[in-house]
């Protein structure tokens, strides 16, 4: 978690895809909760992750609001892409869900997070094309980074 936070703050916060889109990969930390986990716990965890990001990136409220919403939607998103025969306490990963389903899960989670994040950041409908670029670009970039990390970093199990 500390590593991901450092990666986000030191490197990714300075990456501006298509000039406007900055990937916020730290949202990934709210997506790893096992199926059937306590929803209140998940919400508090999401809020804490968002707060941590906001404090270090000077974006008070943006990360908190987006990460809490993602934590609220996580069980729903997970249920959409969980295989029928999956265990009740399945932890979402490429191994447990399969590459195709897991990719879709990560993509829609990241997209949802970046849509809320950049909608609150822009806070206006003027210049909406720039906001759309930021939402799509940031979400896509974060999706690629998470998938890449899942493939490259070896799992213990």
């Amino acid at each position, binding site marked *: 978690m500390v590593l991901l936070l450092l990666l986000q703050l030191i490197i990714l916060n300075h990456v501006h895809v298509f*000039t406007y889109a900055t990937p916020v990969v730290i949202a990934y930390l709210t997506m790893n909760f096992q199926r059937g986990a306590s929803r209140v716990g998940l919400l508090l965890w999401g809020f804490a992750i968002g707060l941590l990001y906001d404090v270090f990136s000077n*974006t008070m*409220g943006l990360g908190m609001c987006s990460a809490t*919403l993602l934590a609220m939607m996580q069980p729903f998103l997970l249920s959409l892409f969980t295989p029928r025969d999956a265990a009740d306490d399945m932890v979402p990963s490429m191994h447990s869900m399969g590459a195709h389903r897991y990719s879709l899960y990560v993509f829609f989670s990241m997209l949802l997070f970046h849509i809320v994040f950049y909608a609150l950041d822009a*806070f206006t409908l003027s210049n909406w094309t720039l906001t759309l670029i930021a939402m799509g670009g940031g979400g896509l970039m974060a999706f690629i980074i998470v998938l890449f990390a899942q493939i490259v970093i070896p799992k213990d199990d």
Partner: protein
Amino acid sequence: MRNLIDFIQKNLYWLVFLFLEVVSLISLFKYNSYQGSVYFTTANQMVGGAYRLTSDVSSYLKLGKENAYLEQENEQLRSELLALKKKLRKRQGNSTFVNIQDTMLTDYKFVGAQVISSTLHRTNNLLTIDKGSKDGIRPEMGVVCSQGVVGIVYLTSRNYSIVIPLLNTSSQISCRMKNSQFFGTMQWQRGDPDISYVNDIPRHAKVEVGEIVETNGYSDIFPEGIPIGKVKKVKDSSDGMSYSLEVELFTDFKTLRNVSIITNYTKPERKALEEKADSLMQTVDD
């Protein structure tokens, strides 16, 4: 009662979710000037008070650097005053010159203010200053500091105003090169808070690195000749038809505290004259 407790227990996560989102939104409005500006127009006293408190503390910490700038500016003004006095004395007999001096002094009135909140790394950065309509500040007035141009007043309430600084993608300030006199429009492109861009400089213009960029006085928001920055790099524009200049801004927005707002009294008169000219031209056309 039991049913109620069961209901709350079952839906506790909804309550927690709503509570956390409300806390997040309050933080968003409180600590972000842009999002807060929406809130600001209706509840300026409360938000302004909070900004003021945090700004009072941080301004003490930055006084050293600010003092150095003020001293430097005082020195420069003193030497300019001496030079002007000398010139005035030489030309005392020439009444036209004295009149021009008078006009220059009375045309623009400055009101001092302090920046109490600002952002640097957003697409739409905004500054909040502690002077408002009560002090004669109105939207579209120019804001400068000892180093150069800061921005244009966007919204005012009774005690506070919001300024669109140069570091805002929707800010456009018409400017010119000090030596070659070619003019263009300055627009920030997000990212580095020290760098902005001047577009539409014709290809035949000879612009050198290090040349000063200053206001050209066309807009009547800023008097001509206020420094904005110096040319850092000369590049081709995306369509290749003109030059795009990378300009290093003189104003250090990271430590900006004291600013002055230019209260321009000639604007209504000039606007009325321009409108009259327009209507006359239409009559001639008809």
